[in-house]
């Protein structure tokens, strides 16, 4: 029974647990955390199971209600979706382990609805990833968007404003997507992705299709914060509570990227979007601008979380560029970078959260080297994450960059090559700025004696529940870097859509 339904189980289990939390945790709030743990662990196990099954038997279609598409709704479990599911769920599990103490320590978050919303958001992510139906995707997009607004808004004082601005632009984005679906439905008469893919070649010259695709691209562009639509992101990530930003930053924008990829290549067709409409070219150019813009903005930030948020804008550009290159190497780079960026952003945001919890701030200019003495492991993890961000081998950051570089060269797009190389230098600037602060003695410090007092330098590492996930993520960056070929050859190469 589990094997025949495993394709649909991850969102369902997350949904079930999320819905039961308000009932079960009515009397005892601590249960909420354990339920979250159970739900995410199970979903991770099922994701692993799914990925192996997909590799064994190929694409799996799951029909809800037993109705065969296009009558009913289906879930599609192919290498791409199973891989994304795994990445998202594993990251979520690690971040949530970290959240054990942090959530209640930070501000006064009500843990019961908070954890329920976390699970709902994950359910939304999983639903989007697996969806084989355009409208079903919209519904789950809304689930995860709404819970994201909620999760962001309980942070600092400014958080509701950030969440509201995100809500406005997000609502416009998802409405655009819905409108796109509307045009697509009116023209093709179908909502199923596979079905639409088979119908669309007959309609390539219709203006409605062109408008539908642009609306959808704008919609997902907003969700993935690609360059001109990134406005909501920095505020939202900065003011959100630690757990939220560590959950949303690695996963939220990736979902937009995934949906973009899915819609462009698996619904409209590779040749159509790249050769006829040149939408991928536009995406690539916007991403390239975003890469540079995000990096430059990150350099000018003094708040660590804000810096990481801008660096997200730039890293999303990498993914968008990889999609926009529209060749196998670019796609491999993009998908690998989705995983890579998810891991390293989770790692970095968790470290920023750890600092915030212990120091009460995460202002780069107020950091000094006694934080390293106090928290050597956290800082080491941060270093690995930063190096991966810069693209230093053998971290996986180097390899995703390598594939992207190969992709740009394949297309002979030298400008993008230059952008990729320049951006890794810009990344180096803003990360080494932090590393200098964290590792080196302050050069001009008025209270040097105070800093050197033994009690100030005593080891004061965060609790193990907050430390272990960070370390796992950091180690994963190196291990996955060395083993990236297993992933690339085993899964990512199987995702490359026909016609690429």
């Amino acid at each position, binding site marked *: 029974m589990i094997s025949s339904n495993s394709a649909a189980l991850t969102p369902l289990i997350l949904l079930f647990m999320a819905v039961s939390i308000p009932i079960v945790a009515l009397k005892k709030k601590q249960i909420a955390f354990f339920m979250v743990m159970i739900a995410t662990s199970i979903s991770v196990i099922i994701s692993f199971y799914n990925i192996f099954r997909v590799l064994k038997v190929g694409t799996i279609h799951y029909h809800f209600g037993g109705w065969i598409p296009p009558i009913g709704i289906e879930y599609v479990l192919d290498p791409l979706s199973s891989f994304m599911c795994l990445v998202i769920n594993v990251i979520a599990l690690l971040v949530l382990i970290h959240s054990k103490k942090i959530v209640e320590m930070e501000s006064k978050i009500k843990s019961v609805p908070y954890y329920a919303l976390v699970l709902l958001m994950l359910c939304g992510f999983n639903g989007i990833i697996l969806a084989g139906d355009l409208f079903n995707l919209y519904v789950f997009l809304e689930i995860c968007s709404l819970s994201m607004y909620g999760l962001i808004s309980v942070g600092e004082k400014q958080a509701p404003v950030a969440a*509201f601005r995100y*809500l406005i632009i997000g609502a416009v984005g998802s409405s655009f997507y819905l409108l796109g679906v*509307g045009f697509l439905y009116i023209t093709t008469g179908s909502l199923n992705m596979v079905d639409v893919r088979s119908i669309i070649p007959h309609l390539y010259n219709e203006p409605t299709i062109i408008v539908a695709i642009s609306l959808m691209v704008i919609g997902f562009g907003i969700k993935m914060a690609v360059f001109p639509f990134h406005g909501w992101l920095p505020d939202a990530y900065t003011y959100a509570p630690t757990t939220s930003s560590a959950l949303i930053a690695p996963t939220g924008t990736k979902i937009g990227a995934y949906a973009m990829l899915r819609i462009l290549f698996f619904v409209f067709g590779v040749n159509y979007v790249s050769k006829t409409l040149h939408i991928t070219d536009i995406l690539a150019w916007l991403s390239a601008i975003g890469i540079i813009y995000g990096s430059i903005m990150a350099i000018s930030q003094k708040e660590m979380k804000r810096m990481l948020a801008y660096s997200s804008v730039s890293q999303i550009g990498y993914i968008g560029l990889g999609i926009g290159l529209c060749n196998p190497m670019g796609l491999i780079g993009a998908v690998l970078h989705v995983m890579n960026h998810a891991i390293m952003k989770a790692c970095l945001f968790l470290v920023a959260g750890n600092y915030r919890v212990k120091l009460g701030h995460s202002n780069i200019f107020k950091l000094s080297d006694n934080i390293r003495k106090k928290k050597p492991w956290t800082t080491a993890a941060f270093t690995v994450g930063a190096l991966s961000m810069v693209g230093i081998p053998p971290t996986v950051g180097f390899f995703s960059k390598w594939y992207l570089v190969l992709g740009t060269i394949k297309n002979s797009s030298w400008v993008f090559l230059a952008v990729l190389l320049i951006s890794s230098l810009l990344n180096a600037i803003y990360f080494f700025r932090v590393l200098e602060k964290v590792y080196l003695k302050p050069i001009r410090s008025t209270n040097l004696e105070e800093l050197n007092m033994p009690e100030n330098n005593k080891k004061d590492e965060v609790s193990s529940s907050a430390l272990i996930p960070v370390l796992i993520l950091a180690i994963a960056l190196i291990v996955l870097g060395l083993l990236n070929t297993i992933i690339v050859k085993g899964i990512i190469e199987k995702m490359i859509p026909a016609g690429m």
Partner: protein
Amino acid sequence: MIDFFLGHYGYWFAILLMCLGLYGAIMKKNLIKKLIGIAIFQTSIIIFFVASSSKWGATVPIFDEKIGVANTAKYINPLPHTLMLTAIVVGVATMGVAFALVISIFQKYKTLDESVLLKRMKKDNDI
């Protein structure tokens, strides 16, 4: 020409509403007005969908013994209606969340004007 106009003016009204809604959502400074814009935008999409489902001379999609089900032209297309039921609920939910956010913004800043809000946020940042 006239036929084309008659066949499309319904869409155009929906499009006009969309533009109105979008205008409100991105141009207005007041948060409530923005929300009204979003609501109009979402509603116009609903109108657009429902308009697409119509068929001249057809009846509501409820099974009728006298008509039978052999001829689909006798019932209007039920699928957009179903989708829009969902979209309505999504819209309502978005509005609920949005109002919750607005209230919590008002609790903290005592204003709903975006430009003032941004200034105060900046002030909070500097502290």
